[in-house]
């Protein structure tokens, strides 16, 4: 109830308002809505980046590396010394996680609001009709699900005239490519081998996971993934945080030691 009233219903109704203002084009509404949510969560993104940067700078410092070496076999002592270092430098190690935790329900809400607004079946439409605010007329639903060649409520396939029996999952391919690029370009290099390994796993795991979701679920969601990835890359690029060189094959993800 709390989730619906305070997260989902406002999001669904904002999405429908945008859809109405954009002349009933749900594809563009998804892109604009994703951009609006990204803009609203920008302060959190900045905070997360600042915190990550501070942490990385600290991990590159001689003092931090000395602590790691000196107390290699004494985890408790190593932790205590690291904490002292945090306090001296005024770093809160949880500061990077907090914005991510706050963004988590927003991202889930965004995803659910798109799914619910699509309402491609009677039960979904009936449920959606009961969540409309008074400023969204009931005549707005069900939404016009057509966008370019896609039915946004169904898994997307493009059938070409010369290949009428084979559906090409164009959006799925775009989701895989943009997720890979977004993870590769916006994940900061890790200072150690273990972190680097995890980054590599994420870079491979996320594109296939989201690609599979895009392949099996509605095209509206896939469009959201693509929009979200592209906007994230643009946002990081504007902030000067994109490392384009990381796309060059063979380049190590582990950062250079100072």
């Amino acid at each position: 109830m709390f989730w619906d009233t305070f997260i989902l219903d406002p999001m669904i109704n904002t999405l429908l308002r945008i859809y109405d203002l954009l002349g009933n084009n749900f594809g563009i509404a998804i892109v604009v809505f994703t951009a609006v949510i990204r803009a609203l969560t920008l302060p959190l993104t900045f905070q997360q980046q600042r915190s990550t940067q501070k942490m990385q700078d600290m991990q590159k410092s001689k003092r931090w590396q000395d602590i790691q070496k000196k107390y290699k076999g004494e985890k408790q002592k190593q932790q205590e010394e690291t904490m002292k270092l945090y306090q001296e430098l005024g770093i809160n190690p949880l500061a990077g996680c907090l914005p991510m935790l706050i963004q988590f329900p927003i991202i889930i809400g965004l995803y659910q609001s798109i799914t619910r607004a699509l309402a491609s079946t009677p039960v979904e439409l009936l449920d959606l009709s009961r969540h409309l605010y008074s400023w969204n007329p009931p005549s707005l639903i069900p939404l016009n699900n057509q966008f370019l060649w896609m039915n946004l409520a169904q898994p997307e396939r493009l059938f070409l005239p010369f290949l009428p029996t084979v559906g090409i999952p164009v959006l799925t391919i775009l989701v895989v490519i943009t997720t890979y690029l977004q993870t590769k370009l916006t994940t900061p290099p890790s200072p150690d081998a273990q972190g680097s390994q995890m980054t590599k796993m994420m870079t491979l795991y996320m594109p296939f996971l989201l690609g599979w979701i895009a392949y099996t679920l509605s095209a509206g969601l896939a469009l959201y993934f693509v929009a979200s990835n592209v906007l994230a890359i643009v946002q990081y690029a504007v902030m000067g945080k994109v490392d384009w060189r990381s796309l060059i094959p063979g380049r190590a993800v582990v950062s250079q030691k100072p």
Partner: protein
Amino acid sequence: MIPSPERRRRIRWTLGAAWAAGIVLTGCTGAPPATSWPGLTADSDRAYVAFQSHVYAVDEQTGRELWRFPSEADPARTYYATPVLTGTGLLVVGGYDHKVYALDVERGTEEWRFDGAADRIIGGAALAGDLVLVPVADGKLYALRATDGELVWTFQADAGLWTAPLIDGETAYVPSLDHHLYAVRLSDGRSMWDVNLGSALVDTPSLIDGRLLVGTFEQRMLALQPGESQPVWTLPTQGLVWGNPAAADGVAYFGDIAGVMYAFHPEDGSEVWQYAQPNAIVPTPALDQGRLFFVTQAGEVFARNAVDHAPIWQTSEEQKAGLGRLLSEPRVQGDVLLVASMEGDRLLTAFDTASGDVRWTFAPTD
């Protein structure tokens, strides 16, 4: 305690994985949820109900399953459309697998199949002489020969068709999500007239005293004279209207999702009575011998005197949970009221129309 950098990375990794898993789980856990309510029809002996993986035939006297189609569940095939009896021993039902099946009513065996549709079949078919008209979610109406499923003609609307057309003489009235009600000539599938009613049309219109009665999402009931674009009268409602009216003895009845049941004169829309209760009324009510039967989304069944809505019986609080959500149109067969459930502990319940006692319930077993 402040976690170490290694631990922090692990936390981040776990959060990332949880985020991804959350997305997957939101849409993909366990059995797929029902995306529509059961489609229920009946003849003098059997009830036929289409829901999720099967179409079931159930003995009306005992509630015993007589057959199911298909015999083995197939995740790619789900059924929600109200089946239609052809009167020639066939039961025709469409599926979310884009196919139309004609089944032998005695055995449940497949007699013919039409696989030319390109989208889901959500709404029930309608019988028009020797044709079966099948509405499809891509906006196409298929006219099939009832005997063998041969395609005779098609009609294309601008948006999805989610409900059966209304047949009157040589005309099919086709409601569409594109806000239009189309009058389609049965001989060749050509549109003769259409009217924009301002919002999606999701239920079959009612034809009462020569007028089409159509409920809309814009919270009103409209009466239309076929061929004219302006409503004869408009009845404002408190909630959006999904199910269209049933009529008997010069009075028509329908409910809205605000939970109000309306009784009115179909000739001018004037009110006879209103009865308000808190739960959404979605389907068309049933009428029998001066009694009005209606169901709510909260799992209640009401039997009322149609003249003045005086209570006859209604389901108890304990029965509500077992009945789940009641969104399908109830059917009266003889002295039994058949009610189909979703999200309850059974699929069908047979109530004694006079007393409200439960005669039997039917819950399919795997």
